[in-house]
């Protein structure tokens, strides 16, 4: 099959189908039949908690697999419109049935995650990308490893844990997880089982409803690491979670001079504080000659509010679909806080807010 696919994807065959691709024709025979398009059928939807669910997917043959920790662009079509979001893979790479899963918490204003949690039916066709992202374990996993996650930031870490379990990892893995409460914790039962395995030291902290007699409480502080006997300088560390958790871990590691050990992944874009005092200036969409007072929201949202329809994909700064030229002005990255002020630079408008006057090639 792989050879057939390689031949069909070749440039030579492309000469016969130009200006379209082979997939444009295969698609008409069967949507799963493709040499480049990655697609999958939903096998089942498992409700992990009241708000979070896992979708088990059977991908077509173009799917080249994933490394634990990676994410995938996940597109569903509703009322003729394809909506794409980025979700982390949560399953083990060692699954033998060719399936994999993504796990998502339904955000109140997240159309796709809500749809996935409430309305997704088995057999639904899903439009995927290949797995992406650098938040992955090294080929040779070191003996000491720390995994930290908060809330639904557990999903990529879960894929790592499951993979390490299934490959019979011999080193020591410490897993520190923060959830609001036990009922709000994804993968609760499976975590109980993994906790009993010798390779892992597991600590789950419920920030809102602490378990009785819990060893540790509250949000992340350096003492949590000390209690677990972790030396940040010598421990490769993966952190995935909300912006607050990531910021405090990063600050701790910076103080200790251990940032080279740190791998970070945000699981969602922090919502932008619309502080009227901060939002000054005018946002100009040059190509369409439209001006709007800066509302403080992301440029993508402001463009949509102004009646434009820029291209977008993940809306969280991953897929680069919304990348567009900024003619001039300064913009701030909503995640990193980094300000970009060069003229004629390409920015992702879904994760940038204007700082003062900005003009965009839109």
């Amino acid at each position, binding site marked *: 099959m792989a050879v057939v696919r390689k031949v069909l994807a070749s440039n030579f065959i492309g000469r016969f189908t130009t200006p379209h691709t082979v997939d444009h024709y295969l698609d008409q025979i069967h949507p799963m039949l493709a040499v480049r398009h990655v697609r999958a059928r939903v096998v089942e939807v498992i409700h992990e908690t009241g708000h979070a669910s896992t979708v088990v997917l059977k991908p077509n043959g173009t799917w080249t697999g994933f490394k634990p920790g990676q994410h995938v662009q996940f597109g569903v079509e509703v009322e003729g419109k394809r909506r794409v979001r980025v979700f982390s893979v949560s399953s083990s790479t060692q699954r033998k049935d060719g399936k994999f899963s993504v796990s998502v918490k339904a955000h109140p204003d997240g159309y796709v995650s809500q749809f996935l949690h409430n309305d997704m039916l088995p057999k639904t066709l899903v439009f995927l990308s290949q797995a992406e992202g650098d938040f992955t374990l090294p080929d040779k996993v070191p003996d000491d490893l720390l995994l930290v996650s908060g809330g639904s930031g557990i999903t990529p870490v879960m894929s790592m844990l499951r993979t390490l379990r299934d490959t019979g990892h011999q080193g020591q893995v410490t897993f520190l997880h923060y959830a609001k409460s036990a009922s709000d914790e994804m993968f609760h039962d499976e975590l109980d089982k993994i906790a009993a395995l010798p390779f892992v030291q597991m600590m789950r902290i419920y920030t809102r409803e602490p378990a009785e007699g819990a060893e540790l409480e509250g949000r992340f502080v350096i003492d949590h690491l000390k209690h677990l006997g972790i030396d940040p300088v010598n421990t490769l560390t993966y952190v995935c979670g909300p912006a607050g958790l990531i910021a405090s871990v990063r600050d701790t590691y910076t103080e200790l001079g251990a940032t080279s050990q740190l791998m970070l992944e945000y699981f969602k874009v922090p919502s932008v504080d619309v502080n009227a005092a901060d939002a000054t200036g005018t946002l100009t969409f040059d190509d369409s000659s439209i001006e709007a007072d800066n509302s403080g929201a992301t440029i993508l949202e402001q463009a949509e509010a102004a009646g434009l329809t820029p291209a977008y994909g993940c809306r969280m700064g991953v897929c680069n679909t*919304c990348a567009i030229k900024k003619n001039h002005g300064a913009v701030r990255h909503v995640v990193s806080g980094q300000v970009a002020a060069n003229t004629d630079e390409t920015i992702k408008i879904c994760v940038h807010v204007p700082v003062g006057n900005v003009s965009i090639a839109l």
Partner: protein
Amino acid sequence: MAKKRAPIQPLSASNHNEGPKHLVGDDTEKRATIGLDLMTYEQLEDFGDELDAVRQRVLDDLGQADADYIRRVIRVQRAAEVVGRIAIFFPFFWPVFLVGILLLAVAKILDNMEIGHNVMHGQYDWMNDPMVDARKFEWDNVAPAEDWKHGHNFVHHTYTNIHGMDRDIGYNMFRIDKDQPWYPSHRFNLPLAFFLMMLFEWGVMYHGVELDEYLAGRMSKAEFKARKKRAMVKIRRQVAKDYLLYPVLAIALVPFTSWWVPLAVLGGNVVANILRNIWTFNIIFCGHFPAEVATFQEEDAQNETHGQWYLRQIMGSANISGHRPFHILTGYLSYQVEHHLFPDIPARRYPEVAKDVRRLCDTYGLPYNSGRLSKQLFSVASQLAKLAAKPDDPYMVGNSPESKARRRAKREAAALAAQS
């Protein structure tokens, strides 16, 4: 650490489906005069608002039915192409061969008109499906999509029928409007039109390179070179496919059949391309060139209002009446008026929108040009024949001493104004 894939080309959402943009003049106080013989400024304002409401109503209603429709058309197009290409490999059985040529021609027509033209207007961008995305779509003819989108979606659809701005008035080749200056080459209006009809895809490609703009110094050399390169790449791919690869594939049949089979396959491709050329040429020439269609002067359109922009589109376009299959094969360009009012709503909605447009035209007493294909074609042909003759007015003859003197005076006045 592995690098993520390189940033993709910056996208511009406004290059392909740039919406109505008004012409702004130097004198911002001056108001455009378009349509004042038919309506007052207040009426024009209301008229514009009502059309805006029609557009919004359709945009709000877009959904599964529109997505299903364009996918159905794509499915038919692909099937026609594949079956057509296979059938062309049976030239020794002529009915199959003939059907093959016709199917391939229909496939190319659907690809260019109902799919390509409309998708590249951004009519289906809301679906967020890369297969019908205006930024990514490339069509089955020798004109590269990128340059066509600029020349068509932006230049032609914004400055529709304004002399000196809309390069589609006569395509720099014909005298199709009495306000165009006459040159001796216009004597050959009709034979030239026949020639262009047979080679239409090449004409569209050449038009998109904009050699005239470069020669007039209005385009940089870098831009011109880039256009030329894009055209060459596209030509190579199209020619290799239709005229080389498929005929060469037919050599495999020679031992079982006859030596001329590859030549017949080549011929079948040529004929299919020409049939497509003839069809698209005729439909497109009926869009703006029938006799009653109005053209405009830049001075009159400067500082036009929204309503005036709409009015200019209505007066500058003509519809062709017919049945549904006919409309689909024209890509609903038979609803040219509606298309020019709302270039970015899915074309299958034009018949429904046409009811509102006709109602508004009746209310305000506006002309609404519509007629059978034969009537519109006859109008275009007689227009081409009539305007081929040298006009009596020397100012209407482009290379007359009077015209030259007037152009010189205009140049000098402009230079003087620039100095002061």
